[in-house]
C-alpha cells in the first residue's frame, strides 16, 4: 500500500489538486494494487469494492493510513468504493448486498438545513404502490457525480423525528435524480463533492435499505432502527481517523526530509536545553500522532473483536482529526516559505487535512459523543 501511495498517488497529487472535477484515470492502478494486497492478506478480493471487512477493520485502517500518506483527495476519488458501500454492508439484506455490494455507492445525508443533526433532514420518501417517491436536496455528497448509485437518507414523516428516517438506494440515471452542481473546495479537490436533487424520483420498493416500511410506534424498536443507521459511523470513523494519521505522518516525513537537507537531526528524549525549538516541536507532534494512531487502532481492534466501540471510535476520530490539522499546519509554519509554496505538497496537506476533522462527524460532535458516554448523559441532557 505504501509503495502504491508513493509511486501511484504522489506523482499525480498536484495534477488533480489543480484539475478539480476531472476524474483521475490513473486510479484504477491503485485498485489493482489494493486487490493484490488484499489477496496476499487472505481477505476475499470482492471485499475490495464492497467494503465488507469481515473482522479486518484494523487491517483496513492501516491500509487507509498508508494510502492517505500518499494523497487523501486521490484516495477518496478512488473508483469503486464510497461510504454508501459501508452502509449497504452494515444494514442491507442478503439480496441488497449481492445486488449493490460491488457497485460504487455514495452516501447522501447532509442537507442545506441539516448537517450534524442528521435526524432533522427533510428529504421525503412516500410509498406509492410498489415505488418510493423521493423529494429533496442533498449536499456535500462525496463521489456523488462519479458513483453508480447513492444511499439516500429520507424521512417517512418529518413530524416523527428520527424514528421515521430510512435510507434508500437510488441508481444513477433514475428519472428525477440530477446532479445539480459540483462544489469547489479548500482541499481534497481530486474527490468530487456533489449537490443532488431528487424531484419526484421513483425507485423500486425493495430499494429501502434495512428497517421497516412503517414507522415503529414502539419507542425501543424505533430507537434501534435509527441506532442501526448511526452504527455505520462506529465502522467508518476509525477509517476516516486512519486517513488523518496517514496525512499527519506524510506532513511530518516531508518536513523532516526538508529539514534534513539543511542539517537537521532528531534529538528525542533530551532536556529542553539541548533541543532546538524545532526538535522540541517535532517530538511533541510525533508523540501526539502516535497517541492518535494507537487510539484509532484500538477502536478498529474492538470492532474486529465485536466489542461495542462507539466511544473509542469517537475518541480516535476526535484526536486524529485535530492532530492531523495541527501537524499539517505546523509543518507549513516550520518549513516557512517552502511550506507555503506549491513547490511542495505541505500546503496541500494542510488544506486536505481540514475536512478530516469535519466529515464523519466534526471534532465537536465527537467530543459530544465521548462526553455523553463518560458522563452517562442522554442527548437531551447534554445537547
Amino acid at each position, binding site marked *: 500500500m505504501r509503495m502504491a501511495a508513493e509511486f501511484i498517488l504522489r506523482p499525480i497529487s498536484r495534477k488533480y489538486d489543480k484539475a478539480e472535477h476531472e476524474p483521475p484515470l490513473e486510479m484504477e492502478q491503485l485498485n489493482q494494487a489494493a486487490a493484490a494486497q488484499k489477496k496476499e492478506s487472505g481477505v476475499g478480493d470482492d471485499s475490495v469494492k464492497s467494503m465488507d471487512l469481515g473482522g479486518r477493520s484494523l487491517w483496513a485502517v492501516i491500509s487507509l493510513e498508508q494510502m492517505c500518506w500518499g494523497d487523501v483527495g486521490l484516495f477518496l476519488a478512488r473508483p469503486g468504493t464510497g461510504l454508501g458501500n459501508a452502509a449497504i454492508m452494515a444494514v442491507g439484506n442478503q439480496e441488497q448486498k449481492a445486488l449493490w455490494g460491488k457497485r460504487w455507492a455514495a452516501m447522501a445525508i447532509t442537507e442545506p438545513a441539516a448537517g450534524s443533526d442528521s435526524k432533522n433532514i427533510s428529504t421525503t420518501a412516500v410509498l406509492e404502490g410498489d415505488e418510493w417517491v423521493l423529494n429533496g436536496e442533498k449536499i456535500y455528497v462525496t463521489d456523488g457525480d462519479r458513483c453508480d448509485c447513492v444511499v439516500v437518507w429520507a424521512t417517512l414523516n418529518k413530524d416523527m423525528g428520527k424514528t421515521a428516517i430510512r435510507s434508500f438506494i437510488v441508481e444513477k440515471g433514475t428519472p428525477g435524480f440530477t446532479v445539480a452542481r459540483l462544489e469547489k473546495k479548500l482541499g481534497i479537490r481530486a474527490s468530487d463533492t456533489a449537490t443532488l436533487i431528487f424531484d419526484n424520483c421513483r425507485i423500486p420498493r425493495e430499494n429501502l435499505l434495512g428497517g421497516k416500511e412503517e414507522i415503529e410506534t414502539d419507542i425501543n424498536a424505533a430507537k434501534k432502527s435509527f441506532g442501526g443507521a448511526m452504527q455505520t459511523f462506529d465502522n467508518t470513523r476509525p477509517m476516516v481517523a486512519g486517513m488523518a494519521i496517514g496525512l499527519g505522518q506524510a506532513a511530518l516525513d516531508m518536513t523532516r526530509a526538508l529539514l534534513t537537507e539543511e542539517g537537521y537531526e532528531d534529538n528525542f528524549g533530551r532536556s529542553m536545553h539541548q533541543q532546538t525549538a524545532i526538535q522540541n516541536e517535532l517530538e511533541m507532534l510525533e508523540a501526539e500522532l*502516535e*497517541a492518535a494512531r494507537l487510539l484509532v487502532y484500538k477502536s478498529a481492534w474492538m470492532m474486529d473483536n465485536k466489542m461495542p466501540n462507539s466511544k473509542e471510535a469517537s475518541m480516535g476520530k476526535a484526536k486524529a482529526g485535530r492532530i492531523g490539522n495541527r501537524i499539517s499546519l505546523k509543518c507549513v509554519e516550520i518549513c516557512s516559505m517552502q511550506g507555503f509554496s506549491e513547490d511542495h505538497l505541505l500546503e496541500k496537506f494542510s488544506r486536505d487535512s481540514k475536512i478530516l476533522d469535519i466529515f464523519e462527524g466534526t471534532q465537536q460532535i465527537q467530543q459530544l459523543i465521548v462526553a455523553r458516554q463518560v458522563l452517562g448523559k442522554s442527548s437531551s441532557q447534554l445537547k
Partner: protein
Amino acid sequence: MQDYNTEHPFDITLSEDQQMTWDMLRKFGETELRPHARQAESDGRPSDELLEKIKSLDLIPLIIPEAYGGMGLEQDSVSNALALEALAYGDLSLAMSVSIPLLTAQIISEHGSEEQKAELLPMFVNGSIFHVGLGINNTMLATDPYQSSVTADESGEEIILNGSKTGVAFANEANTFLISASNESGECNLYFVNKDQEGVEIEDKEFMGLKGAPLSQINLSNCKINASQKLGGHNYSINYESLVDSSRIGMSALALGVCQAVLDYVVPYTNERVAFDEPISNRQSVAFMIADMAIETEALRLMIYKAAALKDLGEDFHKQASLTYRFATHHGMKIGTDGVQLLGGHGFTHEHPVELWYRNLRAIGIFEGGAGV
C-alpha cells in the same frame, strides 16, 4: 511510516494475572493509600503503620532473586507499568515510596556484583527498603538527562565524585546511596557512596509536590570511593540510557494513575454540582473538557502499553519511551490543571484532592528515576 507487523498483532487484552494484580493494587491504592495522602503530606512522610501495609504487598521481595531471599519472579514491563498506575491511582507520593526502592532493588539485582547483591538485597527482603537511596535527578538545569550532574574521576586508584543530586527519597533513612555520575569518557554509571564517609552532605529540600515522601539533595565534594564501589564492579558499565528510558515509562505509568484519578473524580462532581438549575456537566464547555481528559488519558495508557511491550520484546524502545514521557508530561499537566478548574474555587482548597494531584503531576517530566518497568 509504521509497518503493520503481523507477527505482533495489536492486542491489548490483559492476561488473567495482570488483571488480577491490577484489580488488587488499584483497590489498595484507593482504599489504603488515598485516604492517607493528606496526612502523609503534612507529616512529610508516610506513617510507619502505612509503610508496613505497603511492605506487606511484597512487591520488592517478588523481584529479588531467590539466592538473596526473594521470590525471583521476572516481571514483564507491561505488568510493572500496570502496577505503578494502580498504586498512583491512590496517591503519587505514596506510590513512589514503594516504586523508588523497587527500582533500586531492580537495578541492584540486574547490575550489581555478587558482593553488592549479597550485601544489599537480603535487607530489602527483610523489610528495610530505604537502606539504599537512589540519586538520579540532576541539580543543574542544562545537564543531559542521560548524563549526570555528578562527575566521576576514574583516573587513579580511587574514584572521586563531585557534584550534587536532588530528589533523593528517604535519604535520612539510607546507609548507602546509589548515585549516577559521568566519567571523563562521557559514560554514565552508578556508584555506591556510604552516607557517613567524608565529602557527603545531605540537605533536606521541599518541593511543590510529592510532599508525602521526604526528598533531599546529596552534595558530594571530593568524595573518594574505592573502584569496587562502582555498581557491577570495577570494569562494569551499564546502559544508562536504557535505565533512564525505562524509568520514564514508569513515571508515565504513575502519571496515568493520577490522570485517571482526576477523571474519575470530576465526573461525579460535575454531574452533582448544580449551577443555573442544572448539573454543570450539562454544559458543553464543561463536558468537552472532560471528553478531552478521557481521550488523552486513554491515549496515554496505550502509549505506555506500547513502550513497555517494546521493551518486553527486546526491541529498541528509546523513541517510544521519549514520546510517551513527553506526552505524559504535557497532557498530565493539562489534566491536572483542568481538574482544579472544573471544581472552581472548591478545587483550590484542601477539601478536595484535585489541587494535590495538580501539584504532584507537575513532577512528571521533571523527576527521573522515580519508578522502573
